[in-house]
């Protein structure tokens, strides 16, 4: 091929002069390189998949709520209704970083607590990142007042379900990262879950169970998922188990060893 082309001149790098035909060709190549890279950057950068609407809702400001702190299956707060939020809610809890709220809450499980922090929100599912001094403490009774109490509603069984979807770590999926799912995020999800972030099951079909897409995961007895189930995180799997409703949060109680990778 080289033989058929007109002689473009001989290039010697350390000699500063470049033969004119070769210089013109090299300018074209340089422009094509810069332009091509710019074009590819734009094409790849604009073709991102929608990572969803998960967000760290710092704009809402620091939230304060009162409720019963539960340890199982993962730290959750059964929020006591009040004048501003008359509906009972159940909110998953986390702390800054890839860590569990368990250490801070170890003496408070089962008690009525005041919690402060910032919200992660995705769709109609929330998570509270407990943050700041005295942000998790037992509710104290005022002088001459009876100790405050709140009894959360019992869980409502929704029957046995066979679901297809993906196990994600709740914190990233709800907005700590976008995207917070998929194989590229698998190692991060494994690390988050093993460090204490509640695992959630994200159904492939939106609103698959009672209109909900996100289900907090638990073992068959309602405790945390046992052992290392990292192989099933971030891949499409099928799982079967009982679904229960805790206020506005669904809990998917499964035998994780029976997960089927699709």
């Amino acid at each position, binding site marked *: *091929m*080289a033989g058929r*082309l007109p002689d*473009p001149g*001989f*290039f*010697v*790098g*350390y*000699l*500063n002069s*470049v033969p004119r035909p*070769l210089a013109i060709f*090299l300018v074209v*190549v*340089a422009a094509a*390189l*810069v332009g091509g*890279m*710019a074009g*590819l*950057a*734009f094409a*790849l*950068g*604009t*073709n*991102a*998949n*929608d*990572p*969803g*609407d*998960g*967000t760290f809702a710092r704009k809402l400001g620091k939230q304060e709520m009162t409720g019963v702190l539960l340890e199982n299956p993962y730290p959750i707060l059964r929020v006591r209704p009040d004048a501003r939020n008359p509906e009972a809610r159940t909110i998953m809890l986390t702390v*800054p*970083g*890839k*860590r569990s709220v368990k250490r801070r809450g170890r003496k408070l499980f089962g008690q009525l607590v005041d919690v402060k922090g910032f919200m992660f929100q995705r769709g109609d599912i929330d998570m509270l990142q407990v943050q700041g001094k005295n942000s998790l403490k037992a509710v104290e009774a005022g002088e001459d007042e009876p100790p405050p109490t709140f009894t959360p509603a019992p869980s409502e069984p929704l029957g046995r379900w066979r679901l297809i979807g993906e196990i994600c770590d709740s914190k990233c999926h709800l907005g700590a*990262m*976008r*995207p917070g799912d*998929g*194989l*590229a*995020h*698998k*190692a*991060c999800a*494994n*690390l*988050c879950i*093993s*460090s204490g972030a509640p695992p959630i099951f994200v159904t492939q079909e939106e609103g698959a169970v009672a209109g909900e897409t996100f289900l907090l995961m638990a073992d068959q007895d309602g405790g945390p998922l046992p052992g290392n189930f*990292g*192989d099933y*995180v*971030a*891949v499409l799997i099928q799982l079967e188990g009982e679904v229960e409703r805790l206020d506005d949060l669904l809990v998917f109680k499964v035998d994780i060893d029976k997960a089927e*990778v699709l």
Partner: protein
Amino acid sequence: MSVRYAPVGWNRNKIIYDVVLLAAVVAYILLYIKIAPSFQDVTKPTTGTILRAQAFGTCAFLMLTFILCIGPLARLDTRFLPLLYNRRHFGVITCAVAFTHAATIVSIYYSFSPLNKYVAVLASNTSYDRFLGFPFEVFGIFALFLLLVLAATSHDFWLKFLTPPIWKAIHISVYVAYAAIVCHIVLGSLQSKQSPLLAVIVGLSVVLVAGLHLVAGRIERQKDRNAAERADEAPWVVAGTVDSVPDGRGIVVPLEDGERVAVFRYGDKLSALANVCAHQNGPLGEGRIMDGCVTCPWHGFQYRPEDGCAPPPFTEKVATYRLKLDGRRILLDPRPNEPGTYVEPVQVTEA
């Protein structure tokens, strides 16, 4: 050429080369992370750190693809030879871009946990027994390790210290690094709900690199098949005719044993040298005579045609060969002399 080592050997052409490269990298990164997100059809934008990691990762892959295309392109069209001249700077910049990708990923995916972040890189995903969910990160780590070794040994000091054959053997591992990066992308991003565009670009890149190498390799093999014919008198072979060698240039003569010899004409003289430059195995026969010396088309290393020695103070040497004329035919003794052996040039007369 230089007789002393400097951390980076600069000249005007290298500076222009590097400026163009950096312009391409800066344009890519800025467009990816600053401008493209405004045009995304998404509910909420990708997290900035993840976007940066994606930008640097894809940029490194595309740069390495381009680097691997330079070699065969230069074989197919000599106008691409100047891209080869400073390819090592291209490689070092690519390594820096890939390192930034890795550092960004570690800073977001593996930090903030009780586990050491570097331990977490290897311990977070251990699904080695399955394809879906395989820890694709190990391919990236392996590729980055190779790129770091190549960048660290890219300097001419290491070329001299390790000797060209060993240095070349080490640097061929850039293809292993490329294969590892392709596995890293295929098992990671491509299976992770990414748009099909990345799959198309990665596929086309691999086809381009493989295709160019196959075409260039096929042409080189065809050249080798046309080995010089044996002359009537052993051990001589027919290298060509006097008229087939332009003044100031050379022809490449393939031998039966797979070696190649460069036969140069300079004025009324003919000389023959090994075709392989002592610097980085460049094809001397495709070079020119400059200042009375055979000049390699890759990096401009020079050798005197009559003894194969680089002019003082340089010390490189290549093998020389004996020539003689049979009428207008050039006959070549295919047995190489020791590098640096003087051989009296053959005198030619105009037909």
